[in-house]
């Protein structure tokens, strides 16, 4: 089993095939989209592949160390930030093929006009921590 992060972006991903912003959908279309996401997560729970899911606010800022005894420097939020992560789902699956298949399903969530969203999701494998192997 290997864990994968399915990353959803507010901005920064290539354009979705059904690229109407969510605020221009009908309420019923939004509901259908949300229900699809919930059902998707519930399905993964049933197959024993669900680890975690969460969403991020689109607010946020950059922070860095600014020298001994000084408070950290903050900057932002930047309206123009190119890449903005919206949320993620962590799955634990048997293969990369399965991770890709699931990301494809997630990207098929209904959007404007009830048609599949077709948004790009970023799929990233996790590094494992401590794995003793017989390989050496």
């Amino acid at each position, binding site marked *: 089993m290997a864990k994968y992060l399915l990353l959803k972006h507010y901005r920064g991903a290539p354009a979705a095939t059904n690229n109407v912003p969510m605020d221009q959908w009908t309420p019923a279309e939004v509901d259908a989209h949300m229900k699809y996401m919930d059902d998707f997560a519930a399905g993964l729970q049933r197959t024993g*592949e669900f*680890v975690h899911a969460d969403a991020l606010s689109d607010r946020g800022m950059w922070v860095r160390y600014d020298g001994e005894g000084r408070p950290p420097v903050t900057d932002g939020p930047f309206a123009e930030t190119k890449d903005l992560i919206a949320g993620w789902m962590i799955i*634990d699956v048997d293969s990369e093929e399965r991770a890709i298949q699931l990301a494809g399903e997630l990207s098929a969530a209904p959007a404007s006009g009830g048609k599949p969203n077709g948004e790009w999701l970023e799929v990233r494998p996790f590094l*494992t*921590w401590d794995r003793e192997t*017989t390989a050496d």
Partner: protein
Amino acid sequence: MQEEVVRDLVPPAISALCRRGADFASAEDAVQEALLKALANWPDSPPRDPQAWLITVAWRQFLDQLKSADARNARELRLAQQPAPGTPPGTDDSLRLYFLCASPALTPASAVALTLRAIGGLTTKQIADAYLVPEATMAQRISRAKRQLGGIRLDAAGDLRTVLRVLYLVFNEGYSGSLDLTAEAIRLTRQLASLTSDPEVRGLLALMLLHHARRSSRTGPDGRLVPLRSQDRTRWDTETIAEAVVILQDALAADQLGEYQAQAAIAALHADARTVEETDWVQIVSWYDELLAITDSPVVRLNRAVAVAEADGPAVGLAALAEVDPSVPRHTAAAAYLHENAGDLTRAAHLYAEAAQKAGNTKERDHLLREAARLRSSR
């Protein structure tokens, strides 16, 4: 009572319930419930006969499950209330349980989870912690696996290869969380070896023990990875190595070579060398040839190329490496090491850095980064 002793009681309890007419899925659930009660109650009031206690409480649990499902299962209930056969579950039952949990009908992850629960006697929470997933996810994975086993009976024919594969997977998961899966895999393989005389089972047990014996030298005091060639060999567990070598010799004497015996033979040759210079690389290469004849795996080809480099020099090793599919994990790391030995430090440093980017785990990545940094700062 030690936890391991309690866990040993789980498979016989499942077999006992199945013999009394319970289906495997219900029996396994009932025993898990009884196990949780045992873990909660036994520290304060240990039973006189723990095995009988577990079977009795699990059986009661099973009957309760049936009653709550009631009318639909009226027929099963009648069946279940018939007197239990008196004979205790034997060797065959235990072996069948291994086969069932490793059924090819299951995905590897499901087979691993079910094996750890029904044979290892671990709780769902312990397994979930070890694999860093929520308990609910692991519970679903296990109940789904049992549904997939649906019609398969406990006495169906099984394949020992798939069982060994499952145990090997558990071993390679190592230790994460609070549970030592390496030790658990050894415990289960040892049990399996007592149930069958198949030499590959003993080969796998020897392989696990040989790796386990090197465990304390594999990690430095700061938690960093120490490769085999740099390990402090005085820290190897010689008692475990000696035990493994006896098991391996016994297996090889059966003259039915398999991949685990061949891998164990290679591990034994490493274990036998008191210094890295004493390593018998020529014999190791010939065992890799045997292993290739059995498995024809690209990973084996890669490891063989590294052994060839040690036996015949880095140039010959690099030529062997050129024949290996470059997408094999650790290919770049092996190339870096061979180029370093061939004296091309610039290229080696570059390859170590590239290998670090491709590494699948943090310890390996950090090790490769340090190797790149070491070469770059020595220039």
